[in-house]
């Protein structure tokens, strides 16, 4: 079991948990967090390199590093792991954000140890989710990732935190209620009559034994289940409140990684296992996600709380992810995954910056701030860069992701899909509107509050956190083909025959 490298994505955080439990002071806590998250980054980078080498050597299997260990044997539930390019991308994203998040919460108060404990527990769930290919384990890790949010927001949050934490938890758990039903349903149709039932994604898709009628029932269950976490309209309202109340690192992790669980799950479970229903029912969800793309953007235009703006922007961007996934062609889905990466990094960056600004000004109301460019140039410049990434400036990650989505979606042969693509395209303008509105009000213009003049610019750990993210955002933006190929390979191996795509 421990010869499989993927296990260490769960083992390292678990060791970190142990370390945190044993640590006595702030210094030790930080050491554990930094060493652990660096180890995770190293591991994921190593995995990426090794994966590419294996692929280059001609490995054509759908998943690599596959391992499966019996867990609940009579039910054929296994601890099954395996990754492809997409999961590796997601692992990389998660480890980066955990790393940045650790630095962003350098001076968290109160109860730093507990904070990190929950944060790392959350990341156990996240990493576990991305390496699993067994529905049960996947679902378990999924929920493991959700629940720490409640305490993280509730204890360390700000504003109307109790309400937000509760709402977030309940809505996400509501989604997972549908999800659980869907997963159990899939399980019972995972094999042809008389065959051994299984929870293993690869086997289920190989068996392809879920008949169409059941697909029509189970697809919406799973899609909505994951869609709630993917902030799909109309199940997105946890996002603004939740993000607004969450502490910095939690917002980062949640918007950056957790919301990706939704998109990833939609594609890996709902669409991968039930392609026929996905094809037939896509239009319903396309309408919903199309709405969330435009709607989120419009809502963001009138918000005054920085985090609300960003949360609605996340609704819009994550809507685009689901939107593209539903297009069911290689390019659009590649774009969706890239958008996940891109949005993950950039929104984490946003939340990090907002947290840092909030930590100084103690307000998030853009009407009460202004001219911060003069006061804290480093943060302001980073904010502008994040904004530019968000509105899709070429050379940063947002552009490549969105363009891949738009071009891919527009390749759909159906007129309906193309028209909706155009609708979704409109979001780039609205995005520009709200991003520039914020940038204009917050960073530019005269200094609004004289007290702000005394504020200081970023500290070294804050710089480290933001620079890491900016480098990643720029890396994706400048060398998109690397990521695109990494992702596309999966679609070409596992999805092509499934969907009859080009």
């Amino acid at each position, binding site marked *: 079991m421990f010869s499989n490298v993927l296990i260490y994505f769960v083992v390292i955080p678990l060791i970190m948990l142990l370390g945190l439990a044993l640590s006595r002071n702030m210094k030790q806590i930080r050491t554990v967090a930094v060493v652990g998250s660096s180890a995770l980054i190293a591991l994921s980078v190593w995995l990426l390199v090794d994966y590419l080498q294996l692929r280059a050597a001609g490995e054509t299997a759908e998943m690599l590093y596959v391992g499966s260990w019996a867990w609940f044997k009579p039910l054929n539930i296994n601890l099954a792991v395996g990754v492809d390019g997409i999961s590796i991308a997601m692992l990389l994203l998660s480890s980066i954000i955990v790393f940045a998040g650790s630095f962003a919460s350098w001076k968290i108060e109160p109860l730093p140890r507990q904070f990190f404990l929950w944060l790392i527990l959350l990341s156990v769930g996240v990493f576990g989710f991305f390496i699993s290919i067994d529905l049960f384990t996947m679902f378990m890790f999924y929920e493991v990732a959700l629940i720490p949010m409640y305490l993280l927001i509730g204890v360390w949050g700000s504003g109307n935190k109790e309400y937000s934490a509760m709402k977030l938890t309940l809505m996400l758990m*509501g989604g997972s209620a549908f999800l*659980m039903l869907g997963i159990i349903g899939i399980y019972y149709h995972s094999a042809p009559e008389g065959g051994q039932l299984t929870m293993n994604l690869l086997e289920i898709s190989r068996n392809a034994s879920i008949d169409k009628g059941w697909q029509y029932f189970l697809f919406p269950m799973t899609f909505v289940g994951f869609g709630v976490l993917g902030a799909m309209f109309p199940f997105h309202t946890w996002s603004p409140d939740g993000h607004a109340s969450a502490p910095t690192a939690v917002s980062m992790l949640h918007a950056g990684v957790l919301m990706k669980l939704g998109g990833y799950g939609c594609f890996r479970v709902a669409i991968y296992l039930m392609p026929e229903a996905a094809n037939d029912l896509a239009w319903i969800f396309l309408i919903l996600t199309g709405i969330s793309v435009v709607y989120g953007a419009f809502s963001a235009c009138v918000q005054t709380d920085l985090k609300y703006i960003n949360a609605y922007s996340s609704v819009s961007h994550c809507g685009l992810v689901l939107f593209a996934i539903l297009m069911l062609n290689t390019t659009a889905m590649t774009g969706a995954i890239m958008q996940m990466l891109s949005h993950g990094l950039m929104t984490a960056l946003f939340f990090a910056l907002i947290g840092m600004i909030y930590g100084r000004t103690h307000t998030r109301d853009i009407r009460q701030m202004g001219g911060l460019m003069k006061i804290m140039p480093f943060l302001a410049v980073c904010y502008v860069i994040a904004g530019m990434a968000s509105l899709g400036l070429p050379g940063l990650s947002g552009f490549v992701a969105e363009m891949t989505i738009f071009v891919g979606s527009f390749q759909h042969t159906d007129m309906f899909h193309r028209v909706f693509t155009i609708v979704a395209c409109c979001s780039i303008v609205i995005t520009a509107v709200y991003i520039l509105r914020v940038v204009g009000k917050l960073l530019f213009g005269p200094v609004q509050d004289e007290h702000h003049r005394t504020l200081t610019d970023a500290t070294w750990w804050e710089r480290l956190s933001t620079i890491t993210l900016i480098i990643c955002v720029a890396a994706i933006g400048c060398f998109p083909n690397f990521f695109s190929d990494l992702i596309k390979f999966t679609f070409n191996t596992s999805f092509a025959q499934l969907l009859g795509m080009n």
Partner: protein
Amino acid sequence: MDYSQFLAMKQEIGLLVVFLLVFLYDTFMPRRSQGGLSVFTIILFAVFTVWGFMPCMGSCADSAFAGMYVTSPVMMAIKGILNVGVLIVLIQANKWANSEIQIMRRGEFYELLLVTLFGMYLMISARHFLLFVIGLEAASLPLAAMVAFDKNHYESHEAAVKYILTAVFSSAIFMMGLSFVYGLTGSLYFSTIASVVALEETSAMLIVALAFVVAGVGFKLSLVPFHLWTADVYQGAPTSVTSYLSVISKGAAAFAFLVILTQVFGAVYSDIWEWMLYALVILTITVGNLFALRQTNMKRFLAFSSISQAGYIMLGVVACNAMGMASLMYYILVYVFSNLAAFGVIQAIENKTGKVGMADYNGLHKTNPWLSFTMMLAMFSLAGIPPFAGFFSKFFIFTGAIAQGSIAIYVLVLIALINTIVSLFYYLLVVKAMYINPEQPVVGAFRSACSERIGMWICVAGIIGLGIVSCFYDHLLELSGTFGLF
């Protein structure tokens, strides 16, 4: 007359031996060595519990008294689960039982508790309704006395009255149903009834009889609408008794319910009681949840929570298959640990400060981090959050139910799942009180008694370990496969 048949009843005999030893110790030991009673009982019971799991118990499936009594590995397992629960209850109750007020009654407490456990054994193993009724009464009448144990509290009396009157009423209804069954089939042996029911066509009398039987056992399980006594009794009873009532008594009843419905009325599953149970499950989960939403007393809150948990347990019965049965037992096992952890904390705090309000838990984590941690684990487990055992038990019980395969069961499970959100809400309320509410802590820092801590540690170990370590469920599933009910 073959009295050696009594030897088939190893566990019952063993339990009676424990009972007698405790009784004799309590009655005849000189006053100065009375102090050892609690320890004696706990150790004795622990030995008995361990003995129950010994391989020497064998995997014998045995029946005695011409089929009136049956034992099999599954039943041994469920009795073993109950034993573990009782052991934890005993350990947790130690402090309370040795408190100044209770010390002179603790012998009776142990004795009554063991007798009720004996009654539950009979409920589980009985294959004759007369024996079943005796088991049922033995499991509920002494409990009424135990509910009334807290003489200084008015609530305790009120609870006892409510409990005994409704219990007797319910057993009257139950026996009315039995008389109908007898009138229909001419026998009280399960096997005979089952064969006659399988031949007969469905009649109104059978349905009404079944409804009365369901009501009678549903009372013990506190299914809605037979649940109304639950909250008051749980609230009024001494906490040790409440914890006993909520897990052990409920677990035994659930299993007995499963046995009756499948063994006796298995032939009319899809005709009659599948639909009855659908209605009951939906009602139970929903109403239990709705009531739990706005409770402020922890014991009362857990009462309603246990009502809705009973609804989930019933899903294992609805499934009517081996997996459902295994899941039901597993659910009970997990529920024992989770609920007892919660009660352990409540008890520790109540023993120290006498406070049981939810508001008294505000800011608890500042003064008593371990207590609140345990409580949180219990709440998470009850709410079904991984990686705690409650998640696994919920997942398996749903999986077991859905194995039945009809669309209706999917709808039922969906309703149950949506209800889990409501339940999550109120479980989180407790967590919120302990961790999030900004008020100053009401309960000061204290060190709980050794026995309480041991009890809680066992529970925490169970909450964490039972799910992740798969052998428990695997074993139960294997056993259920051999049960041959379905």
